[in-house]
Each structure stands twice: as C-alpha cells, then as structure tokens.
C-alpha cells in the first residue's frame, strides 16, 4: 500500500509537469529540453524559502512559481522569436546552465550532494487534487481563444499572423503557463521527496515529458494525461527488471512511432459528447442493431 501511494503521488506530480508540456508541445508545437530546469527552480526555491528563510509553505510556493516565471520570461524572450529548430537547443543549454548553477552555489543549495531537510508536506491527496486542477486549467486553456491561437500558429505561423494573431505573445503566454505548472510540480516534488539534487533535472527528464505527451496523443490532452500515467508508472512497475526498464520503455515508444503515429488516442478528447458517441457506438455494436444514428 505504501508503495502504491508512493508511485501514485509521484505520478500525479509528473502529471502536472506533463500538463505544462502539453501546452507547450501539444498545443503550440515548441519543444523545451530545459523544462525540467524550471521544475528544479520550483523545487529549490520553495525548499530554500521554507528551510532557510522560515517562510510558510503557501507563500513560499507562490514566490517560487513567480520566480520561475520571471526566469522563464528571460529565457522565453529570445526563444519565442527564434525559429522552432532552435528552441529545443537553447532550452537544452539553459537546463545545463541551471544544473551547473545549482551545483556551484553550494552554500545555498547544498551543491552536488543535494539540498536536504525539506519537511514532507505533500500528500497523495494534495498531489491528486493539484494534478486534477492542473489538467482542468489546461483543458480550459485549450478551448479558449489562447488554445485556438496556439493550434493555429503551430500549423502555420504566417497565416496566423495574417489573421492578426500576435504570434510572439501567444507563444510567450503558452511558454509561461507551462513554466508555472512545471515549477509548481517542482514545489510538490521537493516537499514530497524532502531532498533534491541537481542531477534529477536534466534534459532527459524534459524529453521524457515530451515523449509522454506524444505517446498518448500529441493532439489530445486526454491522451497526454493517459500517456503520462502509463509511462511514469511503467519504470516504477518494471523496477524488478532494473536496467532493462529504459530499453523496454524505448521499444514501446518506437512501436508507437512506427505503427500508431498519432499516439494512443489521436485527437480524441474526453468530453461528454464524445463519451456519449463512443457509448452509443459500443451499444450499437453489442446489440448488433443499427443504433449508430443516434450517436450523432
């Protein structure tokens, strides 16, 4: 039971970051390989605020998220203006720089040996509620004017500008939203693990999140959520297989790329209308009657 709680809590924390990556990669078509660095900023900042400055938890988290957003703005400023190919590389460099900084600022961060003594405040319930809220916020975002503009510019920036869309601003909004979510997930992470070190936030982690989004369906928030659930739980479940788990993981993703390129769910979203449609379709199949019409 303790193991299950542990796995679930971590899965929910990951889910928050993946919701952020969905906004960035799924909606807007940008790849960040420095996303985990924002998680690091959230973790370290909230930890330091509470442990070293004695701040209460909630303001510490708010401040940590704000700090990450400010840093995000500085990185985002060039990033949203560059051609897409550059974004992943610039953010990659950023991630490395943050890791180096955290290792170097020993007196504040504990350096390479990590920052310890953070109280455990994150419970399964807090993580679960946070994850649900994060996914809900992103769902609202997707169906808003912002979401539409993100999808529009993802496909065709020039046509988007011709429709009056401020491409740079919309990209920045999406980037900062994803930064805020990731930083928040970092706060929860720090107060769950009670210990953070600079190595846990490298570009592989950012890449993993992109793969999760993709695995479930890059155009579907439901799919991305599902992908995050399956793939973040998988290495924990496969723990018995030790070193082989990443190989299995990679083979699974390669299979999806080659044989189901739109991801598990494609563009399908969990909405009341789609549920009804699917349900009616199922019922029609089961009863063998022509009940398909009422589904539409």
């Amino acid at each position, binding site marked *: 039971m303790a193991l299950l709680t542990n796995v679930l809590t971590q899965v929910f924390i990951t889910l928050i970051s993946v919701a952020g990556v969905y906004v960035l*990669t799924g909606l807007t*078509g940008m*790849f960040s*390989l420095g996303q985990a660095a924002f998680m690091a900023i959230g973790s370290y900042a909230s930890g330091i605020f509470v442990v070293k400055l004695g701040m209460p938890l909630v303001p510490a988290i708010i401040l940590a998220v704000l700090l990450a957003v400010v840093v995000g703005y500085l*990185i985002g400023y*060039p990033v949203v*203006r*560059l*051609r*897409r*190919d*550059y974004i*992943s*590389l*610039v953010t*990659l*460099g*950023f991630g*490395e*720089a943050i890791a*180096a*900084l955290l*290792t*170097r600022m020993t007196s504040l961060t504990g350096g390479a040996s990590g920052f310890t003594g953070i109280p455990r405040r994150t419970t399964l319930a807090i993580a679960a509620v946070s994850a649900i809220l994060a996914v809900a916020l992103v769902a609202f975002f997707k169906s808003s004017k912002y979401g539409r503009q993100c999808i529009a510019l993802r496909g065709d*920036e*020039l046509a988007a500008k011709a429709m009056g869309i401020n491409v740079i601003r919309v990209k920045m909004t999406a980037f900062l939203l994803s930064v805020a979510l990731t930083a928040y997930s970092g706060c929860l992470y720090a107060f769950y693990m009670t210990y953070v070190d600079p190595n846990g936030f*490298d*570009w*592989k982690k950012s*890449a993993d999140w*992109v*793969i999760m989004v*993709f695995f479930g369906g*890059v155009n579907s928030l439901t799919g991305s959520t599902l992908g995050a659930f399956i793939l973040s739980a998988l290495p924990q479940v496969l723990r018995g297989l030790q*070193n*082989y*788990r*990443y*190989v299995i*993981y*990679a*083979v699974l*993703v*390669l299979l999806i*790329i*080659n044989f189901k*390129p739109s991801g598990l769910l494609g563009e399908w979203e969990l909405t009341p209308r789609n549920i009804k449609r699917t349900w009616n379709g199922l019922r029609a199949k089961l009863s063998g009657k022509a009940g398909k019409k009422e589904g539409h």
Partner: protein
Amino acid sequence: MSLQILLNGLATGSIYALIATGFALIFNVLKFSNFSHGATMTAAAFAAYFLVSANGAGLAATLAVAGIAGAAIALFGEFVGFRRITLNHSSSTYFFVSSITLGTLYEGLVTVKVGSNFYNFPRFFTNPTINLGDFVISTSDIMMFTISMVALIILAYVIQKTRLGRALRAVSFDRDTAQLMGIDSTRIIQLTFVISGVLAGIAGVFLGIKYTLYPTLGSLVVKGFIASVIGGLGSLTGAVIGAVLLGVVETILLSVLGSGYSTIATFAIMLVFLLLRPQGIAGSNVQEKA
C-alpha cells in the same frame, strides 16, 4: 591568456567540431535535431572498447571499429526510427520524439552491459606529453586535433567535390525534386547517417580518452549542439567555426571561472549571440514562402 590555453582550446574545439558536424549533417538533410547523436557516440565508443582496445589494440584499430560501430548504429536508427516518418513527411514532432527515444534506447543498452561503471581506454601513447619549445602539450590533444581536422577535410572534399556530395546537397535542398531527378533519396539519407555515425564514433573515442568512458558520456553532445547553434543550424562550415570558437572560449572561461560558472557563462554567451545574430555565423535566414 597563454598560448597553452589556446592550444588546449583548439584541441577541445576540434572534438566539438566532429560532434557538431555529425549533428549538422543530419539537420542539413532531414531538417531535425538528432538527439540520439550523443548516445550513438557513447555506444560506438563502448563497442570499440570491448571489441578491440580491451584486447590491446591500438588507437587506429579502436577508431576504425568505433567508426564502423557508429555507422551501424546510425543506420539502425535510421531504419527503426526515421525511415517511416520520413516517407510519411511527418511533422518535426515525430523526429524529435524518435531521436530522443533512440538515444534512450542506446543509453539503456549500454547501461545493461556496463552498469554505471567507468572505463578507461588503455594508454595509446608512450609519451603522454610532447615538449614544443616552452610548451608542454599532451600527445593525445595533438592526435585528436590532427585526426579531427583530417576527418573534416575529407568530409568537406566529399561534400563539395564528389557525385555523392552533390546528391547529398540536392536531397538536402529538396528531397522530393531530387527523387524526381533520379536520386535515390532514401539511399542518400542512409549514407548521411553512415557519415554522421562514423564522426560520432571517432568523437566518442576521443571523449572517452579525454574524460573516461561512462554510459552518459554522450550528454557532452550538448557542446556540439551549442556549436552548431552558434554556427548556424545545418551549416557544416558554421558548425566547425562555432565548435572551435566554443572550444577556445570555454577553455579560457574554465581557467578563469572554474567548471561550474564556465557552463553558465557559455550559455549566456550563446543566448546573447542568438539575440544579436539569430541565423548564426554562417546560416542564412530562411524566408517562409507566403
């Protein structure tokens, strides 16, 4: 700044140049960032270590085997990771995810074999250093610099002067038209991967000599990425210039600031550079057609 530092920087820069060109070649032809390049370097270097150098072979044999292994790995990657999505004209998302997944796969396989241990290549040179007047230069640095430069000159010759090179440039310019003109673009793409793999193998061995061999050695590929961003994505000349610059600047920063802050300073320089000249040293700013 002493000449010593400059020479060290050039040696480091030449390795970065090998990484950056291998990366830029793929970008040039398929227009995506190949994030499996790092793990290809590691895997090829380990293959060479276990196949020959652990049995006492010299540097030449090690490099040859690493090059062949790199080519084989890259070909495998092209087939399982990129063939289908290239033929489908899939969006960049797929190339991104595919290359990262391949990287995870190679690194995972290396970890299965070696755990998280460190390995050392045997010492390839009897004299670890050479005295050149007042300067003491490490033999391996000189070897790396020389071999890298030779490899890059051969590459430049192949691309500029041979039929293969022309076909490669044609495919990079417009794959579909090249195909219509009778160029087998799948074949050319495979060849590009082979060349990139060979460069990865050589770079992997050099990194192994310089820093010892370990499963995540490939993350040093970041240096190659930064070099090709500075040089202008997809430009081979730019990648080489960017790499040498990066190598020298980094070595200077390292001696002034120490290891942690030099990474940060390097990144800051790249960021400022991109703001001032987003197309890189050699890159042309591509105008989207309306």
